């Protein structure tokens, strides 16, 4: 294993019966990286992030987070990471403050610190104006912000985010991005999956692309771009030929080979 990496996997595999969702991937994420993990629907992104955060046991392979074997030291690893999983993991019948206070204590903070940080985070996330509102009555975007607040309340060194910007408005997205960039500046590592490639391109320094359970690309965004641009441009796409840099979307589409179907029409669709 690469001991210098914050996140390191070795032949990480997950099977569901005969189906291999994640097929022997070797990930390397260094300290301070803003790492984007991309892939088409069903490629294995969420399965991977669940395995990296201890929410799903791998079928085989090894995971090291901050130099600790996740299987051998789950509690020690969990103390140093924050997670916003797919379903957000909230408790609907608590208020935002109560949930953050609860989360802080579950992550080992003392009562005073948990309470202070809960108030601070509610303020920062602009969720403090309706203190009596239950989480179940929050809008989707508010729930995302609350889940994010709960994931960082203990000051994690590594943050895992599964689609953090899904359903979040531009103002809230700006708040979240500012917070995440602040964390990176202070040396934290962030691992996120997102389908919004523009956001990934703007935020992430490093990217990995998973397709059909296999890692098909990994590295610094510039390295990936250079690698793809060096290949022969796809006829008719006109990419790279005019000297323009490839966008992440173009890199992604070329890497996973996912050209849009234009030959098929849904004639019944008005």
């Amino acid at each position, binding site marked *: 294993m690469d001991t210098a990496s914050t996140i390191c996997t070795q032949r990480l595999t997950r099977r569901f019966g005969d189906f291999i969702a994640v097929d022997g991937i070797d990930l390397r994420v260094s300290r301070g990286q803003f790492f984007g993990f991309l892939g088409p629907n069903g490629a294995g992104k969420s399965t991977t992030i669940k395995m990296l955060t201890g929410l799903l046991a791998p079928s085989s392979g090894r995971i090291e987070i901050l130099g600790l074997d996740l299987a051998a030291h789950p509690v020690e690893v969990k103390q140093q990471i924050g997670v916003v999983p797919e379903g957000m993991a909230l408790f609907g019948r608590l208020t935002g403050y109560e949930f953050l206070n609860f989360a802080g204590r579950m992550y080992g903070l003392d009562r005073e610190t948990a309470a202070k940080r809960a108030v601070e985070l509610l303020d920062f996330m602009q969720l403090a104006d309706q203190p*009596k509102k239950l989480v179940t009555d929050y809008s989707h975007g508010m729930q995302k912000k609350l889940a994010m607040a709960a994931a960082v309340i203990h000051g994690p060194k590594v943050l895992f985010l599964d689609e953090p910007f899904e359903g979040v408005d531009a103002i809230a997205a700006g708040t979240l991005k500012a917070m995440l960039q602040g964390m990176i500046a202070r040396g934290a590592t962030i691992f996120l999956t997102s389908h919004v490639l523009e956001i990934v391109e703007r935020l992430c320094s490093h990217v990995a692309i998973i397709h059909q359970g296999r890692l098909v690309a990994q590295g610094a965004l510039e390295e990936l771009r250079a690698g793809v641009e060096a290949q022969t441009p796809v006829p008719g796409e006109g990419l790279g030929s005019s000297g323009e840099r490839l966008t992440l979307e173009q890199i992604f589409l070329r890497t996973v080979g996912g050209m849009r179907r234009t030959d098929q029409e849904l004639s019944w669709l008005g």
Partner: protein
Amino acid sequence: MTKAGFTARGSQLSAIAWVRWRLFVNSLRTTRGKLDLVSRSVVWLGFATVGIGGAAGMGTAAFFFVREGRPGLLTLLLWPIFFFWQVFPIMATAFANNPDSSDLLHFPLNYSSYFLVRLAYGAADPATALGSLWSFGILMGVGLAKPGLLPWTLLVLLAFAAFNLVFMQMIFAWVERWLARRRTREVMGVLFLLLLLSVQLIAPLTGYFTTRPRPAVHRFAEILIQGQKILPPGLAARAVAQVSASHLRTGFYSLGLLCAFVLAIGYCLHVRLLAQYRGESLSDTAARPVLPQDRSLRLGWNLPGLASPVAAVFEKEIRSLLRSGPMLLTLIMPLFMLIIFRFGPMNSARQVGTAVPGHSPGLAFPAAAGFALLTLTNLVYNNFGGDGSGIQFFYACPARFRDIVLGKNVTHASILVIETAVVWLAVISLFGKPTVNITIATLIGLLFAAAVNLSVGNLLSIYSPKKFDYSAFGRQRASQITVLISMGVQVLVVGTAGSAFWIARHYGNSWIANLILLLLAVIALYAYRAVLRHIDRVAQEHQEMLVAELCRA
């Protein structure tokens, strides 16, 4: 409605029936699904036995009532059916099997279809099945005694069944609505407190009536008898009796009045369902004005001697429960049970040596305390059901599952202690103070039963979880495996405790039972500790299934 409209509605309803069938078939793909079906079959076999036995009994009674020319006495059968139909679904929510139909509102379902679907979903309930079976028994009894009366009785009992079905749904829909809003929840809380206070008046009132000369009691009974005649069970009995006596016109009036009840209750249900159909939000926080932020720091709760995560989980559970009206309503059911046993028909029977608490006040405290524990089974046997996708948080955070489960157990044990104290006070008011021996035996027995239930409940919460919405009322589906095993545990606990009392009686020393129960409690507590010690491993092994089941939309 146009023919095309009917066809579209028929198509939607058949699509809903088909999707329910496919959901059932697909659930059998997993071993858990198959086990659930087996458990469901066993539970339903039990209900079928009670249903068929009851139907035979009701049928026999109905046969004799009609044969003896006293069909008006059918009211003695219809009232218990009515009470069972309405009370059982609240008292035994674990058996509820009503899927939530509100998901269907995503589709362009017209309102009448939604109303029908809601009624059909509500009909998949043991109370409805048993009530219908018993009504069928009455129909057969009447038909055998007087075949000419069969079609009319069928019509009357159909109206009676429709009334019960619609009434049950109406109660659920409105109670859910009242419990969802803080203002109405508070009003209901005040009403409940008044009820508790009025319980204090029951003993003096009972004394007053039992010491009155018989004519006064008879006058009171006469008022009750006359009053019940204009209510649905009484109307149904009268409709049959009047037609049996060839008073066709009054018979039709009674049936008409019964149908009017169905329509009136149906209208009340319609008001609620229409609001749901139009997309009402039961939340009262959304509409609340923005409040100035409370800047004072509110610290989380602390439980002396217990780890911080245990206290945090305890606080979370208590706060969640206090905002879950339907669950609170279930928890106060033991008090209603005591009142029913004290003043219900079973207490007015003149059998000697029966085990009904109304006849044996000494049994009231153990029975009510036992029922208090039973009302907790929804929580104890499905610890994580109310957490939904929050279960992922428990797996993602560094807290041990042992602490999380302990926090939940402390919550449930605290509720049990409070319920037992309240029940004890209620027993004193209604039946008189239980003896020291019975109180001690009950408390030790409760300790034993609680430890066994918590141990098995902790395991089943992980082995057989089911997502549970604390805010929904009568629209839940419990895991049938859990229902079956929890029933088995109760039989085992009651059997063991009963054996202890039998041994004590055999040796003529009631304290022997206490000693045996104490020994059993110690063993059960040891088993509980062992379960808790291994719960992290069990939770880890079943993580995937637990998360998948509870995060399911």
